[in-house]
């Protein structure tokens, strides 16, 4: 499968008050799916598929949880940049909480 693989890692912290719930997880997955890179989320010694909403909801990351994101693939750096941006923006869940498609992120490539 993967040749010429860029691997990138980045620490993130969940800061929205409700944590990584269904809707934020859904946004995360939708964004992750725009990249070719494989996205892994490391937490508590386990790894979860960043493109799976089932995986992410079982992760049950609450506010204040620190996670490590790992991306492998040609667009790994961009993917991490975008995903970290989404997380640090608290999934746009606050006052002006647009949905992700309503707010095209400058970092996101129009994915397949």
């Amino acid at each position, binding site marked *: 499968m993967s040749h010429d693989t860029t691997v990138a890692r980045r620490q993130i912290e969940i800061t929205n008050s409700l*944590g990584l719930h269904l809707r934020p997880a859904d946004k995360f997955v939708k964004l992750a799916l725009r990249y070719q890179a494989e996205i892994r989320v490391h937490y508590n010694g386990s790894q979860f598929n960043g493109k799976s909403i089932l995986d992410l909801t079982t992760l049950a990351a609450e506010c204040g949880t620190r996670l490590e994101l790992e991306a492998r693939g040609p667009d790994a750096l961009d993917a991490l940049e975008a995903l970290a941006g989404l997380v640090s923006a608290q999934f746009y*869940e606050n006052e002006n909480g647009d949905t992700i498609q309503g707010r095209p992120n400058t970092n996101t490539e129009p994915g397949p």
Partner: protein
Amino acid sequence: MSVRDRTFGDRQAARGRLWQRTLRGGSEAMTRLHADHRNDGMPPPASSISVPEPPAMAVPMHVIRGIAVSPGIAVGPILVLDPRGMRLPPRKIMAEAVVAELERLDHGLEVAGREAEQAEGEARARLGPQYADILAAHARMIGDVTLRNDTRARVEHEQIAAEHAVIEVLEAHATRLERLSDSYLAARAADVRDIEARILGQLIGQRPKSFLDELPTPALVLAQDLSPSEAAGLDPRRVLGFATEAGGRASHTAIVAAALEIPAVVGLGKFLDIARQCRMAVIDGDEGLVILDPDLPTQARYRAAAAERSARFQELSRQANLPAETLDSTRVVLWGNIEFTAEIDACLNLGAEGVGLFRTEFLFLNAETPPSEEQQFQAYAAGIRALRGRPIVIRTLDLGADKLGRYRDPADIESNPVLGLRSLRLSLHDPGLFRPQLRAILRASTLGDVRILFPLVSTLAELRQARAMVRDVAAELVAEGHAVRENLPVGIMVEVPAAALMADHLAKEVDFFSIGTNDLIQYTLAVDRTNETVAELYSAADPSVLRLIAMVVEAARAHGIEVTVCGKMGGEPLYTMLLLGLGLRQLSMPPHQLPEVRRVIRGVRVETARAVAAEALRLETAGAVTSLLESALRQALPETPEPAAPATR
């Protein structure tokens, strides 16, 4: 007598007289009904007032009490849904069949995903965005990469059938979610099981709404709980009513039932084991009762009540365009109370002149996070547009902190939520919650005749604080270039005795009052009406309550502001004369109550109503007031359409 005739008579009293309740077990609200055999099952001539006689002969039936979430009566055969959905024996496949099985799996997932998307589209049109979003997430879950990989791996390595792989993977996920301490995520297990049923429906050739297809004739659906898509798929022509063990007022099923106008009772506790042995049932969505295997007289009584109710409703609905005007030509403004935009049609068809109470809680319940300003704006705008210029009173969030995800910390749990951080108190306490709502309402205010209503105001200071926030938000919006309606009318719910007592001062600082009788009664009489042991004390007819209402109406009159009753009392015909007599000229109620209330208004004189109210205020007990109101109503409107032959008047 038509005991189910919800329109007349003090329900509480009727209930007390009719049923002898024997609680079996500590928490199980299981009661036995003692049927009234006087008439051998023949429907008695209908009368406007139910005067049940003491039971002549006792035949035990199972009567289970739950929470009434959608009014109406349904009698019919029952279908009990298996709480765990479809279960299949494991099936092994041959090694050479693996490839074909994988294809079957992929195809099943694909079709199920498309179907969920389609369900989402339908739900969006029929039930609104809140509900559709849940189904949208389902579609995404069905397309989930982990689901696909894990199920494929099981088919390949363990050589089990596709449907079995799906069950194993999703059950494991659901169980994991259920084990989480977090109640929000734990509730997602229901979503996982829902998509499981949908996928299995594809794989084993059954439709996900299979239970609907099982219905030989229209039936009552009894279930542990309904999944979101089951609830959304309910067809009122085939499902006469439904009852669930789980659920509360804010459950999916409750919300959908009310929107579809299917009688429903939820929160019944364990009863399916008994129900499985029964053939038919009555669902009484007015009283929150389910009667399993009712005897013939009970069936007949309920059927008669249902028939009478519907004949009468149709007859009265035909009069929807007649003005709500008393015999001596006093106009009364009738408004509808709604939760969903979809209910506006019912309001208008039944002759409402506007919406006197647009609740906003539905946006916040069943959501992981509070709705964004934009989502709220869209919801309010849809309601306002549907009314095409007629007034709409939007009430700001009326929920306790305990109902919202953002206060889930055990440290925040209140020992007495009813007296705690709720409604406007919560909004003022949490500007992050309140400001987006105010912004959304103010932005939508230019689209029609919008008014804003604050719930549970206790003091002038709270009102001033809330108004200041409205001004602040308005200025902010203007600075951002938004159009905002100037002089947006601001009103308060008068539902705390303190507010009623201070109504003369409050009236100087608001544009209207809306009397929320449910809470006003609860707080005045210090009684929780859902608590069976003290529920008898809860009565809108209590003289203490009447005095407070009279004070509020007088304060409004003195300061020239509008006053409406939007609590349950406003929609009960028994109280219509009393309220008119107390000086009310605006009433707001659930749409289905409009016809009866209009009928009473059109049948009385204001001077008679005044005399009734004056006498009621002199009485000493709720019982005396109720008797007075019953007899006054009987005198004013002796005639009532017969159920067998609807009046043609």
